[in-house]
């Protein structure tokens, strides 16, 4: 990791680079990868996500995040019915019919994702062939890609990984003589993306792209000159494919909290040969703002004990932020999947002996949580109210995915998300 001693605090003497991890296999109380469509379809503004699945998939999309606020969703489900299960040829014809009907009604769609589900995977409906076949029919107006968001293969945010991984092979090759360019990978809120663009411009990185782009026609090109920086910790497959096309990863902590954002920008800057002093000067003001905004919540959070149930894979960098910038004590950091390489910089900043768990056996984990009696529990929506009713204070994890939390200007907001449940509990007299 590249850091500037002038700005960043020292690492703990004994850090947590290769920690022991409790691996569990039991009931997993997490969303499947389809859920990622909820933010992906808002991010790529001319993309449509067609889930090929069951009524359960449609019901999940409708129930899980209150997305019915969107009058015009750019996602739908092609619900597999009994007669589709009778023979696969029939299912393919049916899919073509549904897609053609959809595209006729939505001429504004430029990119269509066929999204596999548990049932489509189990019956081995070949969506990559379907995507190829349909692409030939509807190109150049529409490009058809596919990925799987099935719960038997993906957990919650891995759906974004699968979606971006599907995009990578379709990205144009950068010319051989293209200058080195920076590619930021992972969905960020538009406002956050704009903030980072301004900072990169100010420190002098000229070619900066974001994957995914906001429009299907504006996706970046990649090649051996691509230096990529992950904005999210759950993009293992996407990273692998980018490297297959010559991209090189910039090792950095994730841009959560003042320290994370500074480390992330520094890592990029140094890769592009920018002098640390120039970077420090460019980020001095936002870094100061971030520290100030975070410090407002320190009194409320310092010394409080936090327990993470696995949810978004953001748990490790968030734990790092809460521990180092707010003084919280980490009781257990559960995560669905532990990508050691990508998390290396964050892990190095955590204290030795931090209790990590990967996967889940939800009933056993609840037992541990009850026993540990933490001050605040991060968990999914299925668990939050029952744990509250037992007297625990919870922070529902999905908000960490749906709220802009990355970057300097959002560091205070991230801290506030954890302070709010405690604040609320303190206010209520009944």
């Amino acid at each position, binding site marked *: 990791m590249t850091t500037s001693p002038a700005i960043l605090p020292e690492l703990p003497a004994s850090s947590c680079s290769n920690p022991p991890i409790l691996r569990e296999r*039991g*009931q*997993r109380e*997490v*969303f*499947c*990868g*389809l*859920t990622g469509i909820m933010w992906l379809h808002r991010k790529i503004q001319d993309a449509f996500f067609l889930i*090929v699945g*069951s*009524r*359960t998939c*449609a*019901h*999940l999309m*409708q*129930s*899980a995040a209150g997305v*019915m606020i969107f*009058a*015009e*969703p750019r996602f*739908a*489900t*092609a*619900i*597999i*019915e*009994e007669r*589709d*299960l009778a023979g696969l040829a029939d*299912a393919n014809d049916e*899919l073509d019919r*549904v897609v053609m*009907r*959809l595209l006729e*009604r*939505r*001429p*504004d769609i430029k990119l269509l994702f066929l999204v596999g589900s*548990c*049932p489509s*995977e*189990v*019956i081995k409906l070949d969506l990559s062939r379907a995507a190829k076949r349909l692409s030939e029919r509807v190109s150049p107006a529409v490009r058809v890609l596919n990925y799987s968001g*099935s*719960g*038997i*293969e993906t*957990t919650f945010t891995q759906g974004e990984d699968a979606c971006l991984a599907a995009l990578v092979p379709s990205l144009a090759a950068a010319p051989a003589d293209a200058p080195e360019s920076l590619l930021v990978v992972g969905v960020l809120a538009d406002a956050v993306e704009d903030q980072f663009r301004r900072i990169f411009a100010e420190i002098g990185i000229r070619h900066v792209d974001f994957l995914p782009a906001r429009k299907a026609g504006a996706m970046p090109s990649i090649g051996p000159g691509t230096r990529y920086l992950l904005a999210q910790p759950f993009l293992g497959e996407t990273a692998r494919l980018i490297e297959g096309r010559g991209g090189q990863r910039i090792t950095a902590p994730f841009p959560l909290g003042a320290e994370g954002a500074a480390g992330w920008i520094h890592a990029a800057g140094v890769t592009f040969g920018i002098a640390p002093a120039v970077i420090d000067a460019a980020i001095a003001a936002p870094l100061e703002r971030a520290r100030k905004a975070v410090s407002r919540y320190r009194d409320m959070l310092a010394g409080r004990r936090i327990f993470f149930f696995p949810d978004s894979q953001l748990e490790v960098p968030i734990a790092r932020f809460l521990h180092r910038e707010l003084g919280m004590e980490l009781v257990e950091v559960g995560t669905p999947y532990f990508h050691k390489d990508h998390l290396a910089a964050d892990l190095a900043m955590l204290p030795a002996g931090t209790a990590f768990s990967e996967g889940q056996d939800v*009933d056993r984990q609840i037992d541990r949580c009850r026993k540990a009696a933490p001050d605040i529990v991060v968990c*999914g*929506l*299925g*668990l*939050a*109210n*029952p744990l509250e*009713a037992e007297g625990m204070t919870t922070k529902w994890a999905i908000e960490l995915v749906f709220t802009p939390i990355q970057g300097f200007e959002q560091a205070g907001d991230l801290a506030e998300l954890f302070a709010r449940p405690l604040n609320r509990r303190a206010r209520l007299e009944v």
Partner: protein
Amino acid sequence: MQLTVWTYEGPPHVGAMRVATAMRDLHYVLHAPQGDTYADLLFTMIERRSKRPPVTYTTFQARDLGGDTAALFQTVCHEAYERFRPKAMIVGASCTGELIQDDPAGLAKAGGLPIPVIPLELPSYQKKENWGAAETFYQIVRHLAGPHALPPNAARPVRAAGEKPRCNLLGPTALGFRHRDDVRAISGLLERMGITINVTAPWEASPADIARLGHADFNVVLYPEIAGPAAQWLKRSFGQPVVSTVPIGVGATRDFITEVARLAEIDPAPFLKAEESRLPWYSRSVDSTYLTGKRVFIFGDATHAIAAARVAREELGFEVVGLGTYSREFARDVREAAARHGIEALITDDYLEVEAKVAELQPELVLGTQMERHIAKRLGVPCAVISAPVHVQDFPARYSPQMGFEGADVLFDTWVHPLMMGLEEHLLGMFRDDFEFHDGAAPSHLGHASRAPAAAAPARAAEPAFEVPAPAMAAAETADVGVLEGPTGWAPEAEQELRKIPFFVRGKARRNTESFAGQRGIRLITVETLYDAKAHFGR
């Protein structure tokens, strides 16, 4: 394959979860992948339940598929039994579990648990949530009460003299539309009538309670979609007659009291006299004159839709212009009800079709589900919710039943509330172009919560292809602005004049005028045509 944006019902295993979650001491082991655990949040978030649903999911993954998912299922059954110690267990598969064909029923039987294990066959690719709830409840009843059934051709034992009549209250589940409050309203009513409630089920019933369902003299079915098959089986096995009137509205509650009294062999007259609703007087109050003939569109599950149509016409003086349901199992009942209102029923689970129908009929009030609330909001029509699918708002903190006389009072309030009030409506008629008091202004008691046509229009323009079939879109938009294409056109002054008519009757005025012109071969509608048509049709 069916292209679906929003869906009225979940899959059948969610119906089974609604039954399991309503009950006590029952556990559901579901062979399902990890994503299916989302269903827990329906109960913990939408219904704000303080306990996790009593469901254990096997959460198999891709890597398990090559191995022994059957063994996984058996292990999970045993662990769930050891941890939760239920008195009975239901077992089954979700849509994906069904495809891997592990036969949960056989596996659980072979597992040798010391409690009744009830297998569920819920075909996910054919059936839906309410069917799943009904089938689950039926299987639970058949398995647990079955051993106590009367011998074939035996008559029910006669109730001892002096013993109070007893009934069961069947149908209420978790995540039901006001089931919590309906149970309280109807239990109270029955108790005041001197009837003992033997068992309420599935709501807070234990397996032991289900086993003694046969002790009642008759069954009250509150929600036929859920308790219909179980009640029919109880009728066959225990000779228990079924009260089939669903007590939604004043008239239906009176009928219900009469029917119950007949089965309980008591005189209904004192109860019909003692029980009171404010609805009849409120409806007769002159303030309610403005409700006369309001055109209402009704859509929901069959029970609530049919009941709402009766209340709308007989108790509020509305005109029912549309009636439909997503409950295909009850299509015949809804068609019959619609015929009584002189209209054709809309039987569909395609939300786009419902949207098109609302746009076409241009009602003044929509009574529907949360889906119709969205439709109505987009089309600028007032709406009240009468049926599942539910939303967190459908679980109000206050007591708010739909059934019984108190329920009728709730219906009056909630259906009338979204409308423009009487004098307000008249003033709007008088001062149509008033700068503060125009079409876009919300009813004063609704604040900002009402329609905002100016904001809605650009949104529609920006994404014109929202999945409403083109004709519906056209109908919806021309209700506000624009000139109709086709054989009959509007002169600009006539169009201008039309706009002075309050928005909530404008659609009707437009349609009436066009059909008037069409019948007379008038190609261009003028101001004269508009008023000729008004005179022809009345209001």
